[in-house]
């Protein structure tokens, strides 16, 4: 009994974009307390091109918070995390790795077609979808066991159509 708490990491990623609103939202004490209460131990923020710097933190009573700008492979960070909070660009990379995901839509981007995809996948219970303002509530309400695994798509139907159209024989 006793011993160390299992390390449970939340990985926040914005890819190569600038998404200060998300970084600010996770840099909140109340949100971090909520994550702590849900059993998470570490919060790792990949902040990309953003200018807002979150506050680092250590200690047993708090979430351990750290951040960096870019990484050559966020796949490794995704694999070692228990929960991903990301911009819309990493949706499929995360779903394919089978990790629970909260997609946060960047409302500053013009032509917000990202939200269509986030909402559609949330409807199908493959992930949770939120805005920087609703992120806290989404975390409070989330039930990761209710998420349905995502089965990857298949490009062969398109390839078949293209081949047939051009007159190539079926394989």
């Amino acid at each position: 009994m006793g011993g160390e708490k299992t390390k449970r990491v939340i990985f926040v990623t914005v890819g190569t974009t600038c998404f200060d609103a998300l970084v600010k939202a996770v840099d909140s004490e109340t949100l971090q307390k909520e994550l702590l209460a849900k059993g998470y131990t570490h919060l790792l923020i990949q902040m990309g091109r953003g200018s807002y710097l979150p506050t680092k933190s250590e200690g047993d009573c708090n979430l351990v918070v750290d951040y960096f700008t870019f990484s050559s492979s966020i796949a490794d960070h995704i694999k070692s995390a228990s929960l991903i909070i990301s911009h819309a660009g990493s949706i499929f990379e995360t779903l394919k790795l089978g990790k629970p995901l909260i997609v946060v839509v960047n409302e500053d981007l013009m032509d917000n077609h990202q939200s269509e995809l986030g909402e559609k996948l949330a409807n199908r219970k493959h992930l949770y979808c939120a805005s920087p303002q609703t992120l806290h509530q989404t975390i409070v309400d989330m039930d990761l066991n209710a998420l349905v695994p995502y089965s990857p798509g298949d490009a062969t139907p398109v390839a078949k159509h293209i081949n047939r159209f051009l007159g190539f024989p079926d394989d």
Partner: protein
Amino acid sequence: MENGNGCCFSSVSSIATLSSVAVVVILILIRVLHVIYCSGRPLSKRASKPVSTLIILGSGGHTAEMLNLLAVLQKDRFNPRYYIAAATDNMSLQKAMMLENSLASESGIKVADTAQFMKIYRSREVGQSYITSVWTTLIATVHALWLMIKIRPEVILCNGPGTCIPLCVIAFIFKVLGIRWSSIFYVESIARVRRLSLSGLLLYKLWMADQLFVQWPQLQQQYPRATYVGRLM
């Protein structure tokens, strides 16, 4: 008397000019409609040799989806492959090069024999003023024309970025003029669930894509001439 003859002559010649212009316009219209009609139908001949293929890459998700599609296309059929990305997009061509390099090392064929990588000027950068955009769009169109004359692909694969529009328009004009028949395949992004992107909408409304593929069923209901193919990612 002379004046009378002069007036008669100039009115006859202007009628003649107008008639010739009208005839030419009608002929062009008929040709355009014929091209559109033929484009929508599969090619009649069985394909007997590889087709030169232009692959138009766009940033981020677009390239990931395109590479996903390329992975299941038979490389010996779609050959040689020309990759075009916007001048300011650094990642996409690199990813395409990685794909081609791994193919080359598997098969022993040199990359340079089967694939080429090119950049194209963007019509307009995000946030650019509309006044300078007129000039840059002109330059981008001329550049697109130059590239298309060099490549004259038989197949064009694109999936969304604005870079594909000038290239597809020029390909369509080449079809009408009989310079080269390109089969244009447009795959709308998986992120487009309820509405087509601007590129997709343009190609659809102008009947310029031979086949327009969508990944969600509600898009096919909205755009009946599109082909629903399920999710690629």
